[in-house]
Structures are given as C-alpha cells and as structure tokens.
C-alpha cells in the first residue's frame, strides 16, 4: 500500500451560491505524478489552489501527511506552486528569485547557498544566477520557476498549466524533463492541464475533472482504453459513439443494433434483451478489410488525410447520415469516395451501461 | 484573526481620515455656508436663506458666468484644434521619437505656471518682444493690443492648459490600431472621412477627458485673467476670490462654488456615460 501524502475529504468550494467543486475526495500518493485533467472552467485549478491554500475551502478537509491543513495559510503550507505564467519576480535576479522562499523561512545563508546551487544545476541553469527574468527565454523562465519551487525541499509541488505558455517543441522537451526531474527527486507532482497529450505522456495517474467532480481516476492506459463515462471517452482522444439496443444474447456474445442500423457482436456481460447500451470505439481500432466477416460493413471514404505517420479518414455508411472516424497506421493509399469494408473488432468495443443518459 | 483585523483598520485609517477631514468636511461646510446669510461686516449670520443662490441669477453675475463659460469653451475648442492634428501628425514618427516629443510637451507644464504666464507679458505687452519684432520688420505701424483683453486671457489659458488636452488626445490616438486606418484607406475613405468615422469615435472619451481638464480649470484660473486681462476682466474664479478675500461675502462665494461643483459633476456624468474612466482623469 502506497503512502498517502495528500488527502482531500469531501471538499467543496462555493462561489456566491454556485458550487464549483462538489464533494470531491481524492488520495494522492507520495512520489506520484498526478494530473488533474479537464476542460477550462471544470474546477481543476480551484482544486490545486485549495491544496496550495490560495483558495479557501468551503466544506470538507484537506490533509497533508495526515495533518489537517484545511485552515493553514498558504504562507505556512509545506507545498509550493509553479504558476501558470511562472510569476517570477521581475525585479529580482534568478538567484534572488530562488532564494526568496529560503529567506522567508530564515534558512541559514550557507545552507541556503548550497541548496540554491543544487537546484540551479538540477534545472541546468548554471551561469544564469545574475540574470533577470526578462533576460531569459520562456523555457529558462520555466526552469527558474521549478527551481524556486523545489529548493524549498517540500514533498509536494503543484503545477498550474505550467507548460501551456511554451511553444509546442519546447513543451514536448519540458514534458520529458519534468517527468525525469520528478522521478529523480521522488517528489509528488500535482499537475493541472487541459491538454490530454500532456496528461497522457507525463502522469502516473490522471483524474478527469468535470463540473467540479472527479469523472474518472486511473492510469493513462486505463483512462484511454477503458473510459468509464461518455465524458471521459469524448474528452480523451477521439471516439466513435453508438447508441445501441440488445436484440439477442448467447453465452459469450450479445447481438446489438445501433441507432444507425448496424448489427454488432459484442462481449456479453449478463445483458438482457432490450438493454440500452452506449458503445465506444477508438478510431484506430477500426480496420479496413478485404472480405466480409462479423461486425463488418460497407462504407464510403470521405475526407481522407494522410500525415506521414498515419492516415485519418471518415467512412460513411448506411443511410450516409453518420460517418465513422477511422485512423490507420498502414501506408496504403485510399481515394475519397472509394467503397471499402470496415470492421469493428468485438474486443475493441467499450460498453457503457444505460445509466449514461 | 483579531490581529489581522487591527492591522487592516490601522492601514485603512489614513485614507478614511484624509478623505473625510480634507475633502468631505470642507465641501459639506461650504454647502452649509452657502445657505447662510452674510452680514454687512463680512461676518456670517446663522440663518437659513436661499438668497445666495438667487443672487447668482443677477444679471451682473450671469454675465460673468457667461463670459467665463465662453472663455472656457473657446480655450477648450482651440486646445482640441491644436491637439488633434498634433497627435495625428506625431504618429508618423518612430516610437522612441514620439515618447521623447511627448515628454517635451510636459516639461514646460512642470515649471511654474506663474513664471510662464509672466513670460507672456514679456512677449505680448505693447513694448514687448512680439510688438517690437513686428514693428522692426515694418509689419505694423502701432503696437497691437495683445494683452489686457480677452485675447490675452485666451492665449494664457490655452498656453497653461494645452498639455492637459494633448496628453489624453495623444494617448487615445496612439491606441488606434494602425491596421484599422489602413482598412479604412483600403475601403476608400479619404483623410476627412477617416477622421470623422474612425479617429473621432475612437478618441471621444480621450477628447472629453481633455476637455474636462481644460474647461474646468479655465473657469477658475483667476490669476491668468488677473495678469493677462489686466484685472479688468472677471471670470468666475475672480468672482469667488473676491467674495472670500475682498468683498468678504463668504456665503455668496460658497454658493457660486457649490454651483461650480454641481456643474462639474454633471460634466463627469456625461464623461462616464460616453465610456470615460475616472482614473484616467488628470493622469499625466
């Protein structure tokens, strides 16, 4: 059993009369990289700010290593935040910025100096000590912000959309570096983002936040391949979503008919006839095949796009009102409007019960 | 929690005390004074009256008010006529040049206004620099009357208040997106049409800001009408000054002041209506 470092217990946050966070409970383990992922306005930043103490909790408790810190001011909380735009003090040098928190904690100068030096070399900024933030690039500023947070030797670092102001290439580099750093320091990183790629690449676990509650919590793999709700399926990656009704059941297989009229075989999970199901299929799991077999239909390719690594297209079928999103990794060329057989493999269908609306 | 509250009270106190003691109470007291009777010896009788307000509508005072307003409006109008082309022409220059040129507008304004007004006496009087120069060039036979009249007052007012118009107008003009102007050109608007349809609407709040900062002082700057008007011409400023210092009819002076305050508030209302921000007033 891993050690819980931060526990949120039925935490709620109310602005005026509206709940932004409703009854949220979450255990965060020591040394993990946890990402709070969700669309803007879902409350993920509020959760982070409640952990840092910059936002007061309306109801519920927050524990740090078993100690109730709900009412502890951010000034005294042993967690640090990397802000969205880094919030480096523009009137202080790199050194002074990193030193700021140590100065506040009255860490003896000789110890402070050593820690600052270590932090600076850890983020590879040796030689930049005397520069001002305005003389640094975006990536360098990011490193200073990280150094300023980790120099405090606290167990938890909170990162608020910390990479989103960087350009794409730099972002990719920093993702890798951030992950490496976290592994090396064995610190707990709590990362907030709306960028699913970022979340999938870096996290040990992802908490999908929607409307102030946790929609799903799990490893990137679980979240991607086994979405538990329609929201998660839709938010993470691309999906084809079908509404279907169970028509016939055998021992291992249930036969369902989708709203569009596709008859599909799916794994049976004690379904009854007339059960309403929601089926989710990732575009890369759909196959283009040569001959008809089970779960195979004919369709017409439209909007074919080839980007070197993979080919994206849509396949119209049935009464041609609906198109499937299909992603292929093979290098075979398809023309728009060509007729193909497409197969939806039984194993690749994720099924949600009818409780999903 | 208690210490926090105490700290908050201590740091809040100065601004509260200041605004009550040095703004609210003086103004309320003037309001109070304006409803009192004055005796013939410059004292105050504690008796309610509306007389002071009725007196403002006496033809002598109405004339002074009108005159001040006309001088104020003319000053404002001339300042606008200078500031618009000045700001627009300045946009041709590079940004560093523009910043320098705007600083240069402010420097004379930061020196003593009386000293500068005095400089105008040296320039404008009968035996002054302008007249001697003109006559030595044989352009005039006898010296022109450039001061001790309305012309002198308006020159002085425009001179003293011009920076207050240039700064907000320039800041409004410089905020206009150059691409918008280009788009208008592209769509076939000539200079005048661009001015009317783009520059004016975009800079309205700035111009009104400047107008407030020019017009309101212009009706009160008694020293300019004293010096360049030769003491013959009264504006509202002189009238109030006389009631307080010479005629010693404080209640009447107070009534005129209240009248000016109400008038000012009306102008501010309009300014806010057209989208002006209070914080930008008088911001230099």
């Amino acid at each position: 059993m891993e050690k819980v470092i931060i526990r949120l217990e039925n935490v709620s946050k109310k602005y005026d009369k509206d709940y932004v966070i409703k009854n949220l409970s979450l255990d965060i383990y020591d040394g993990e990289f946890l990402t709070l992922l969700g669309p803007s306005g879902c409350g993920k930043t509020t959760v982070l700010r409640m952990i840092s103490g910059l936002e007061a909790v309306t109801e519920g408790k927050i524990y740090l290593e078993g100690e109730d810190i709900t009412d502890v001011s951010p000034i005294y909380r042993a967690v640090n935040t990397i802000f969205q735009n880094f919030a480096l003090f523009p009137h202080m040098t790199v050194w002074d910025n990193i030193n700021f928190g140590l100065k506040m904690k009255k860490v003896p100068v000789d110890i402070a100096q050593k820690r600052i030096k270590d932090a600076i070399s850890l983020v590879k900024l040796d030689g930049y000590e005397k520069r001002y933030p305005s003389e640094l690039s975006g990536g360098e500023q990011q490193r200073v912000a990280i150094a300023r947070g980790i120099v405090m030797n606290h167990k938890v670092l909170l990162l608020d959309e910390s990479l989103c102001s960087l350009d794409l290439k730099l972002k990719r580099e920093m993702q890798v570096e951030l992950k490496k750093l976290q592994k090396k320091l064995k610190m707990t990183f709590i990362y907030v983002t709306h960028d699913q790629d970022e979340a999938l690449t870096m996290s040990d676990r992802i908490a999908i936040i929607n409307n102030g509650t946790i929609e799903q919590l799990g490893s990137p793999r679980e979240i991607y391949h086994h979405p538990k709700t329609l929201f998660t399926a839709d938010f993470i990656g691309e999906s084809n979503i079908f509404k279907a009704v169970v028509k016939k059941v055998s021992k291992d297989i249930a036969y369902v008919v989708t709203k569009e009229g596709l008859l599909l075989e799916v794994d049976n999970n004690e379904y009854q006839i007339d059960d309403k199901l929601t089926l989710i299929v990732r575009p890369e799991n759909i196959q283009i095949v040569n001959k008809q077999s089970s779960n195979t239909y004919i369709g017409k390719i439209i909007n074919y796009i080839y980007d070197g690594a993979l080919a994206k297209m849509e396949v119209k079928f049935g009464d041609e009102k609906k198109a499937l999103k299909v992603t292929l990794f093979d290098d075979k060329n398809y023309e728009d409007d060509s007729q193909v057989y497409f197969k939806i493999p039984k194993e690749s269908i994720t099924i949600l019960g009818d409780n999903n609306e | 929690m208690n210490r926090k509250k105490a700290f908050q009270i201590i740091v809040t106190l100065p601004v509260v005390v200041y605004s009550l003691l040095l703004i609210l109470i003086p103004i309320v007291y003037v309001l109070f004074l304006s409803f009192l009777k004055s005796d013939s010896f410059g004292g105050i009788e504690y008796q309610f009256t509306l007389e002071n307000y009725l007196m403002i509508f006496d033809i002598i005072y109405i004339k002074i008010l009108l005159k001040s307003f006309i001088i104020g409006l003319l000053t404002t109008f001339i300042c606008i006529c200078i500031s618009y082309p000045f700001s627009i022409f300045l946009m041709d220059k590079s940004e560093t040049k523009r910043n320098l040129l705007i600083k240069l507008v402010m420097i004379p304004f930061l020196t003593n206004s009386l000293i500068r007004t005095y400089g105008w006496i040296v320039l404008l009087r009968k035996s002054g620099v302008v007249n001697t120069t003109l006559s030595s060039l044989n352009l005039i036979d006898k010296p022109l009357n450039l001061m001790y009249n309305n012309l002198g007052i308006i020159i002085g007012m425009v001179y003293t208040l011009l920076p207050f118009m240039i700064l907000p107008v320039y800041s409004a003009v410089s905020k206009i997106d150059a691409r918008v102007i280009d788009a208008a050109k592209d769509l076939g608007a000539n200079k005048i049409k661009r001015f009317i349809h783009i520059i004016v609407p975009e800079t309205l709040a700035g111009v009104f800001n400047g107008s407030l900062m020019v017009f309101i002082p212009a009706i009160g700057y008694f020293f300019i009408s004293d010096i360049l008007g030769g003491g013959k011409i009264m504006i509202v400023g002189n009238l109030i000054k006389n009631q307080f210092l010479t005629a010693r009819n404080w209640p009447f002076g107070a009534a005129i002041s209240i009248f000016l305050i109400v008038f000012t508030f009306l102008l501010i209302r309009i300014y806010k209506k057209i989208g002006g921000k209070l914080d930008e007033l008088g911001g230099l």
Partner: protein
Amino acid sequence: MEKKNKTLRNLFIILVYTFLYLPIVILVVFSFNASKMNIVFTHFTFEWYAKLFQNKDLLEAFRNTMIIAVVSTAVSTVIGTMSAVVLQKYDFKGKDLVNKLIYIPIVIPEIVLGIALLSVYTLFHLNLGMFTLILSHIAFSIPFVITSVRSTLTQLSPTYEQAAYDLGAGKIRTFFDVTLPLIMPGVISGGTLAFTLSLDDVVISYFTAGPGSNTLPLKIYSMIKTGITPDVNALSSLMLLVVIIVLVSITYIQSKSIQKRGKV
C-alpha cells in the same frame, strides 16, 4: 504632394513646440540681459543671478516653497501609496464613498478646494501659515498619487503576491519585497506629479497662506502686479534647470532599471 504634406505636418509640430517653449526661452534669455527692462536685449550679464542671492524675500519664498513641496510630497506619496493598496485589497464600510471622494480634488476647480479648505481652517481656528499650506498641498496631491499608483497596481498580476505567499512570505514582507518594488514606477511618477504640482500651485496656496508664509508663486504673483525685476527671471531659470535635471535623472534611472529588469 506627399513630401509637401510631410513638411507642412512637421511645420505644425514645430509651431506647437515654439508656442510651448517661447515664453520660457524668453525668460531665460532676459535673465542674462543687462537692461533692467525686459524689452530689448542689450548685453550679456550674470548681474541678476548675483542680485538674486541678496534678495532675502525671494530667497525666503523659495525656501518655503521647497519645504512645502518636499514635506507634502513625502507625506502624500506615503499615504497615497498606502491608500491605493488598501482601496484595492480591503473592503470596509464607506469604501464606495471614499473612492468617490478622492476624485473630488482632481475634478473640481482648484479654487473651490482652496476656499473650502480656507473655510474649514477658519472654522477650526487654525492659523494660516506653513502648516495650513503643507496640509492643503497634501490634500490636493494625495488623489494624484492614488490614481498613479492604482494604474500600476491594477496592471500587476496577483500571481506575484500569491507566489510570495506560497513561498512563505507574510503580508508585510510580501508588500515590501514584492509589491512595492513592482509598483515603484507608479509611486515615483505619482510622487513626481505631487512635487511639481506643489511647486506650481498658485490657486490653493493663495487662499491658505498666512502673512508670514509666502511661497515663490505667491511672491511672483504680487511682484507681477507691482513690477518684476530680472532677478525673478534668474530665479525662474534656475528653477527650470532644477526641474529639468530632476526629470531627466528620473527618466534616466527608470529607463535604466527597465532595461535591466525588463517590463513589469
């Protein structure tokens, strides 16, 4: 066509600057003029500058003006900065009223503030003199400092302060180590404005000065009526020089620190 246009435009700009600087240049030129009449330039002399230092009245007025300006600027910069921060951060009863009141000295005619202060000083039996002058100058300077500081304060992202709290800095520590350095440009320009307004003020000083407390503008005002001697030109030129030096050095220091620290 385009070229001719450009010349005309530049000519207009030059004319405006001529208008703005002509009286000042004339004053400076005549401060070196041997003739006592400010009419024709006869020949160059430093006589008036020498005379200036024997004119006790003028020097005393100058001294008073400087004392008032320095004291009122110091007080109004401190109170004004504090007020701007307090008005942004805290809610208290009557805050709306205070927020409205502080605009009054900026918008109403100076003369109204002048007579209002005079009335209240009389009401409270305060003797007119240096004290009432300083108080009055503080009264009209504070709002300008507040608006100037407020404009930098509203542009300041709250994350700087949050970052400071997050790193363990208390409220007061955060203010002096983080907030104040970041709003310094606003504080400095507010202070500069207060200083120059104080040096320049005629109207409010006119009503709130006492018999023994002449300021330079008041002194010049009375001299203009009785007859001005060129030593006033000399003094004006010197003050002009002081203002320009102060302005240039402030601009220089600011641009240097901006260069170094980058935009706040």
